[in-house]
């Protein structure tokens, strides 16, 4: 078994007096597509934000030979970690092209950046059509595409996706998940947080189930899809 690309040990997140994440441990190995499912408020987003150092946390976060919990947020992309935040987090006042340029902000290989940009425009043609448009005028689905494209411009080895299906029409959700599978097939390791448990488990190879700040189940997607507890709580059966 390959060694873990990222591993969290006893991760805890506090907001004031509330503990949103209560000492969880998990790992994602190189090349895996892993999902983290659970109800609203289970602590999934807090977990991703802690990994990306957007909020303070305790416990250890190992990423290759680094301790992420000792790094500032802006140092992570240089290490190969990108997060597509909840609510997409695109820069609405910047153009599509400028948003994508921001994704490559830490890179200095101009020629390669241009090639990556063309690749992303080829994969997400809607972005190419709207490259000079202010990003705030895009539809929700297009904004999600842009957020993913922008993260890919950083050439991440690990991509953290926070609720990419949120607020999107079913057709758009299918498209977004198709993109996610394509990116995973290209060798990018993905940790996906999703409320749409069925879709997430059908896409990922492995999954963690979070409930009020704790990981309650960890198994392959096939087992989780068959698990009566998962079926009752998250698949509406």
């Amino acid at each position, binding site marked *: 078994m390959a060694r873990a690309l990222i591993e969290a040990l006893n991760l805890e997140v506090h907001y004031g007096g509330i503990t949103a994440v209560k000492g969880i441990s998990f790992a994602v190995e190189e090349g895996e597509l892993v999902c983290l499912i659970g109800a609203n408020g289970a602590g999934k987003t807090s977990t991703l934000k802690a990994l*990306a150092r*957007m909020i303070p946390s305790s416990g250890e976060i190992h990423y290759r030979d680094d301790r992420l919990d000792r790094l*500032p*947020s*802006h*140092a*992570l*992309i*240089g290490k190969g970690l*990108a*997060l597509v*935040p909840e609510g997409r*987090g695109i*820069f*609405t*006042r*910047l153009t599509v092209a*400028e948003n994508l*340029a*921001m*994704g490559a*902000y*830490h890179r200095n290989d101009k020629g390669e950046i241009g090639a990556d940009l063309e690749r992303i425009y080829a994969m997400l043609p809607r972005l190419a059509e709207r490259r000079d448009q202010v990003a705030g005028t895009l539809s929700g689905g297009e904004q999600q595409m842009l957020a993913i494209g*922008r993260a890919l411009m*950083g050439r991440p080895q690990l991509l953290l996706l926070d609720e990419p299906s949120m607020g999107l029409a079913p057709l758009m959700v299918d498209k977004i998940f198709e993109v996610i599978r394509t990116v995973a097939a290209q060798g990018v390791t993905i940790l996906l947080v999703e409320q749409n448990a069925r879709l997430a488990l059908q896409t990922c190879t492995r999954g963690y189930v979070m409930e009020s700040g704790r990981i309650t189940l960890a198994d392959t997607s096939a087992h989780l899809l068959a698990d009566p507890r998962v079926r009752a709580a998250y698949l509406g059966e």
Partner: protein
Amino acid sequence: MDILLQQIINGLTTGSVYAIVALGYTMVYGVIQLINFAHGEVVMIGAMVAFSVIMAVVGMGLPLPPVVIVLGGVLAAIPVCMAIGYLLERVAYRPLRHAPRLAPLITAIGMSIVLQHLALLIWGRDPRAFPQIMENTSHAIGGAAISSVQIAIILLSVAMMAGLTWFVYRTKFGIAIRATAEDVRVAALMGVDANRVIAVTFVIAAALGAVAGVMVGTYYGIAHYTMGFILGLKAFSAAVLGGIGNLAGAMLGGILLGLVEALGAGYIGEFTDLCQWPVARDLLAERCMADGHVVLFGSNYQDVFAFLVLILVLVFRPSGLLGERVSERA
């Protein structure tokens, strides 16, 4: 003489200076939503440093062309102001980055007082007169006059505005500044070090302020340790008029405010001359006969217009002419 054209020329000159100073306020506000009330003082120190350098060079009696001497003053003022801008951010504002909004605002006013009194200690309490070394030739245009200093101020301001616009909209770091202004935490995910962006913003604002300070000094021929206060307030009003946080707004607001002020000062005497109104003329018949004019407000009310504009904007369009969102922040 064409008074209207003359007032427009004067208004464009002071308006250009307001625009450059307003850019300093608006850039900093755009990135950290702080009104850097010490910015006017940075402008004042720019004028003072240039004054000292110009005096020293003139005192040495070097046979340099006046333009070179003034340019030397500018080139000395810029790094000094940049250093002050950096220190302000580093020492006064950064430690309060996550404090309640009122704390850095009060600190800004405090820093303004500190800088004023620092200037008082160094340059004294008397107004310092800039040596009149520039040959201020007047050029006639359409019944009005424009001086070479006015031409220089307008051209230099336009060049700086164009340069800043290019930097903010066309360079990688400029895009990062705009991204940080919109969402610091997401910009960090792209690898943008917010502290660096904020520091650079302060330094650029201070550099613009330094040049504005020298422009004001050479235009009015005078520098004083309190000059930054009123200038800063006016430029702040200009930034609010244009929509604070908006670069184009600061430029537009500055120019408009300069025009309003010049036209207001130019015509207020005429409009408030009571002898032209029939009712008042009858009441004041004796004095109107004797003096011809009984003027209620003279051009010394010039400073009122900036604040009148500020009040009107805050009442009727708080987001400013080009501002998109109404800000309820302190």
